[in-house]
């Protein structure tokens, strides 16, 4: 430090710890995100004798006809699901944002329900409806639900809210003045749709297609339950690792799963940039005008979609309390007596609650610290850029690949963190990393609401940056932080993909129990557990929303004018 501390500008003297923190954060992310994925890559490029074989493993994989077929099927079904899902979500989002649809909050709420359930729930419900003992088996003209049809329907159902959120944001941020200008220039409804609505939603459509495509390619809950004989990349990975203990081939599939996700990451970045450029005009919200025919048609459409969603979820709930679906529908709670079923037990539910709570707390702390370190310090620009890249990287890593990478990395005997293996802590850390990117981005957005000049003011007043973080940044971000906590909690409750490789008998989770019970043929208890997860996630969401409201009322009075 300076020999004449009185003359040294305080800003320079105090930023050392910030650089240190940024470095520490980079090291942590490298350990828990980069290296596991690296281990996956490395394994896929070496043979059993430890020789570098470049892409030979990939060639071997794709040379196996059955395996190549499942890769091709994955792409085909994901593309089909993404198209159908985006089309439905677009009309639905249009109804929610640009029409005078009645009961909008209800329709919005129903369409977001699948976010609260594991994708398994949708699949199990499809089995109950259209499976071998299905309630509506005879109604289903196309053939068996098991296989590609089931995968597509189940995937569309659980990815719908993801596409809907993207598309309603895209449609809602269109400048209302454009609609008014088009009206005064004599354009009709269809012309306005094609010249204003569709161009404005273009990037949203690309995003929704990509996101759903990746979600479907990397999801294995739905194909596991209703896939039947139709194997896909995700189920192959599971079979290679859990069934055959062939980690090398698992790693190859994991790397293949990374590719579409990397593609989506790239699309998100390039599209996101152009989207913000298109929105520079001062936008005013559009107030939709009633139009009887359109509104009625949209009401019909939304009712049909919401009806299907409610039916599918309702059937799972109903079947979980039925004595013997579909022959004896007497209500019973015996399916909830998990301790009588193999592969489950109430203990798994307790594990899930504990894991989800830890994930919410740790996730919030990590995501806020990362967002703060990326946005607020003024120096160490390159390091902060690197940190941001690392924090958003998990967006491109599918859960299965991350989970497999965790086994490969943490289960190495030489790894000093080997002790974490088969404990709750590895599940928590892996889940935090799995869902970190979205949390990081939303907290970054919240932090960026604050003008840079606040920090300059604080600095000129001689207040250390950590105090500004504690007194200003944290309170401002509190609503966003609650949102992020809810996001972590719900996803930790419902996720299957990453943790399915990492649990030990005493740390088994409820979502994994659903999978195992379904696998063992105990479909009713599996449904019961899925419903329990769904109810817990819904209760948690409500609790977080209530807390958010309370916080807004108590501490966010400055937001009002």
């Amino acid at each position: 430090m300076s020999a004449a501390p009185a003359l040294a500008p305080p800003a320079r003297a105090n930023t050392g710890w910030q650089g240190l923190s940024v470095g520490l954060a980079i090291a942590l992310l490298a350990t828990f995100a980069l290296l596991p994925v690296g281990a996956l890559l490395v394994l896929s490029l070496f043979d059993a004798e430890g020789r570098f074989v470049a892409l030979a493993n990939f060639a071997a994989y794709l040379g196996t006809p059955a395996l190549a077929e499942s890769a091709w099927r994955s792409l085909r079904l994901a593309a089909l699901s993404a198209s159908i899902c985006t089309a439905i979500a677009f009309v639905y989002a249009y109804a929610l944002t640009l029409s005078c649809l009645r009961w909008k909050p209800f329709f919005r709420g129903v369409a977001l329900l699948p976010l609260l359930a594991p994708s398994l729930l949708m699949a199990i419900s499809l089995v109950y409806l259209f499976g071998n003992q299905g309630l509506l088996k005879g109604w289903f003209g196309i053939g068996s639900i098991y296989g590609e049809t089931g995968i597509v329907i189940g995937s569309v159902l659980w990815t719908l809210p993801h596409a809907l959120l993207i598309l309603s944001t895209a449609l809602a941020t269109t400048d209302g003045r454009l609609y008014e200008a088009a009206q005064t220039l004599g354009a009709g409804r269809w012309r306005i749709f094609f010249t204003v609505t569709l161009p404005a939603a273009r990037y949203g459509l690309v995003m929704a297609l990509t996101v759903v495509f990746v979600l479907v390619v990397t999801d294995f809950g739905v194909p596991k339950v209703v896939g039947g004989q139709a194997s896909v990349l995700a189920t192959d990975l599971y079979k290679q690792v859990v069934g055959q203990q062939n980690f090398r081939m698992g790693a190859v599939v994991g790397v293949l799963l990374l590719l579409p996700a990397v593609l989506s990451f790239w699309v998100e970045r390039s599209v996101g940039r152009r989207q913000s450029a298109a929105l520079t005009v001062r936008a005013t919200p559009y107030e939709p005008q009633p139009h009887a025919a359109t509104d009625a048609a949209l009401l019909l459409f939304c009712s049909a979609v919401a009806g299907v969603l409610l039916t599918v979820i309702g059937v799972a709930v109903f079947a979980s309390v039925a004595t013997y679906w579909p022959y004896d529908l007497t209500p019973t709670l015996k399916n909830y007596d998990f301790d009588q079923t193999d592969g489950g037990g109430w203990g798994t539910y307790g594990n899930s609650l504990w894991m989800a709570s830890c994930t919410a707390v740790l996730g919030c702390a990590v995501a806020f610290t990362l967002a703060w370190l990326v946005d607020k310090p003024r120096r160490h620009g390159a390091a902060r850029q690197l940190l941001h890249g690392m924090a958003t990287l998990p967006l491109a890593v599918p859960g299965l690949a991350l989970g497999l990478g965790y086994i490969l990395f943490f289960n190495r005997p030489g790894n000093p963190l080997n002790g974490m293996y088969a404990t709750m802590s590895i599940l928590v850390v892996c889940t935090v990393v799995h869902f970190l990117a979205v949390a990081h981005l939303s907290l970054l957005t919240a932090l960026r609401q604050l003008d840079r000049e606040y920090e300059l003011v604080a600095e000129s007043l001689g207040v250390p940056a950590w105090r500004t973080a504690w007194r200003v940044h944290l309170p401002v971000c509190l609503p966003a932080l609650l949102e992020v906590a809810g996001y972590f909690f719900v996803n930790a409750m419902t996720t299957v993909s990453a943790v399915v490789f990492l649990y030990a008998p005493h740390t088994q989770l409820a979502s994994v129990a659903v999978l195992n019970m379904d696998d063992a043929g105990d479909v009713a208890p599996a449904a019961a557990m899925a419903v329990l997860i769904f109810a817990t996630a819904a209760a948690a969401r409500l609790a977080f929303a209530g807390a958010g409201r309370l916080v807004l009322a108590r501490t966010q009075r400055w937001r009002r004018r």
Partner: protein
Amino acid sequence: MPVAAVERLQPAGLNAGAAASTAQPFLRIEAVEKRFGAATVLDGVSLDIQDHEFVCLLGPSGCGKTTLLRILCGIETASGGRIVRRGQDITALPPAARRFGVVFQSYALFPNLNALQNVAYGLRGTTAAQAGERSRQMLDLVGLAAHGQKYPAQLSGGQQQRVALARALAPQPQLLLLDEPLSALDAQVRQVLRGEIRRLQQQLRVPTVMVTHDQDEALAIADRVVLMHSGRIVQDAGPLALYARPANAFVARFVGRMNLWAAVPAGPGLLRVGQALLAHAGARPAGPAGPLLLGIRPEAVHVRPLLAADFALARDEGAGLAPGNRVAAVVRGIVFCGAHVVLSLDAPTLGLPIEVVLPTPPGEQLAWAAGDRVVAELPADALIVLADDDIARHAVAAV
């Protein structure tokens, strides 16, 4: 000052917009009301718009002027009243059927269409070639012939607004509606575009309604200014008449600056302000006798140094007189504003300060300095008597 001077030279002048022709107006707005829940935004507004006329709706934010414009173009529906175009009721007509051109403050150009395509957007029922030709003509008319292939994001704010103007005019609208078209632009571009809008309007002879909160803009561009406040029309007059004969203290304060002093009647043509007795030429407001305000524009006050010969003035003031509407005063402050200088005077007999605007003298010396003793003359024909009503007090609070 020049504006007021011209007004005095042409008392019955060409600007008296209220002197409407007896022929059927192009557009008649009859007692239009708009309520949002309990809030009344428009409270029975009636207004005629003549052929070829340029009307400005002027008022502070929240006065209802934009809502009225939106009702005119059909984007908003009125809660009551009628809009009649040449005898035909168009109140329920959708915007597309009205054939009115609209220019928005935010330009609202379609970001995915280039300038030419934007201008051609409203041209229906013509061949593509005709539409292209017409769009090129319109772009040429607003001086953007060379920019037809550019997208809105590649144009400056002023250029975007010209494209928006061309787009609104291309389908040959029967009425042009401008919603604060200049307020998003910087001062210089504003001045230029203001002149161009006026030139275009006169060239095409299209009746035009422009909403603005900028009184300079309204006075400079309009044939007639409709001043609104709290959902009502406060005054509807030509720009010069509005400036010279404000209907009440709100108008007086909103349009230009004005000295306003509480006054008490003291005989025919005489008012007492403080201890000074001032003669005024104008009529007093009709209606029940309430508190009065005496007003004078700052540029109408004459100022000269206090001379020895004014000794008599001091003596007369002691007797509560102001012979020749002259009062002794002291310069308290002086603010240099470029083209003019603002003096604030303390006049002990008035008990109130006087604001005076003078043209800046040539050279680097201002004619006055703080502490100078002066004589301020308040010409009787420049004094305006207004009622000191609620609306005036409300307006003061808002300012």
